[in-house]
């Protein structure tokens, strides 16, 4: 089997066994994954909550650019970097 890597046309979703939740005790969004917990900042939470396995990174970043009135290239560079890291660490699948 070969490595899987992220592309702008990839449609990410949370990996199997990974769940997003808001923790009342810590007032914090987080991912629960097998024997791991990842605390999410506001931006990561917004991005991941839209990763439904159907929307591409391209389309997602187009949406974000409109909503946050920021250049898509800049948003996309950040999102691609975040998604590559999340994929390698097993938090998302594509």
């Amino acid at each position, binding site marked *: 089997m070969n490595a899987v890597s992220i592309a702008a046309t990839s449609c990410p979703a949370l990996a199997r*066994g990974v769940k997003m939740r808001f923790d009342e005790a810590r007032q914090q969004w987080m991912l629960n994954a097998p*024997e791991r917990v990842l605390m999410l900042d506001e931006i990561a939470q917004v991005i991941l909550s839209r990763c439904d396995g159907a929307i591409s990174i391209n389309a997602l970043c187009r949406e974000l650019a409109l909503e946050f009135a920021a250049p898509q290239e800049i948003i996309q560079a950040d999102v691609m970097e975040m998604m590559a890291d999340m994929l390698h660490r097993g938090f998302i*699948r594509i």
Partner: protein
Amino acid sequence: MSQVSSPLPPAPMALLAELTHRCPLACPYCSNPLTLEHAANELDTAAWRRVLDEAAKLGVLQVHFSGGEPLIRKDLETLIAHGASCGLYTNLITSGMALTQRRADALAKAGLDHAQLSLQDTDARGADLFAGSKDTLAKKTASAAMLRAADLPLTLNAVMHRGNLNHLEAMIETAVRFGAGRLEVAHVQYYGWALRNRAALMPTRAQIDRATQSVTAARARLSGVLVIDYVVPDYYASRPKACMGGWGQRFLNVDPVGRVLPCHAATTIPELRFDNVHEKSLGEIWENSSAFNRFRGADWMPEPCRSCERKEIDWGGCRCQALALTGNAAAADPACALSPHHEEMFAIAQNEAATEAPEFIYRRMDGE
């Protein structure tokens, strides 16, 4: 902000629920204590339900149902369902030996989020030898397929030592073949049963170096396919691990009879007194238990930990290992290069690894 200056400890992240010490396997590195609890003394379903309620209320995020072999408990599905209903992320740590497809489906239906299956070796003879049982490889291969058929996310847990480290590449391939998303390459930790069997388990430095290379290459080769967790074993390390993420900082363990422990090996430290869920709430124990407060934070530390800039990174390492190797549970973990016992620890590993492995002393209920 220092943890010790805050009035309350941070909320724990994870609960290890050791439902039973009963197990079909007899692994010579079992993490259970030398003296095992019998079925008659185990917490009942109602008590475990209350523990799960209290854990969720306390801020625990994940519950790991473990043992022994948790599948032996007939109320496992009930407890998983209860944990899930409390909002806990539920994980099953199993040998897979007694699993059936019906049971795997029932676990998934109960709301199990993830299963961790142990594999002792990729070679059938080795797998039986290291588990002290029969037909383990075939049964575990079948169990992996059942868990995947039930659509449960899977981690393969491989405890590695001198007898199976040369099969690490095959273990990585097996994890992929089993459909696991994650592989834990866990070197044996030497306390309890494993300390008794240390000379039979200790790998050579060369084995460790090859293993590290294999893992590094596999992580790149299988990026996006398989996550590999890997930590260098203590005896060959130069920095101690932040054992349990710091004593009493993130983790609590309830043993089969209801004792609440800061780590699963904490009963090896004779000076500690443990509270029981029969007598107090989990929250009260987390906050006030003398066993938790004994090594919580950094105030208890002697030198070289006290003045170390890493004291709130590694929290002085493992207390059980410090006791086992220095006779003092408050000493710096000898895995640390700053410990006066560090060279001695390294020499023990080198000598034992270079000597022919003795016979295993298998885990037994009576401790002998």
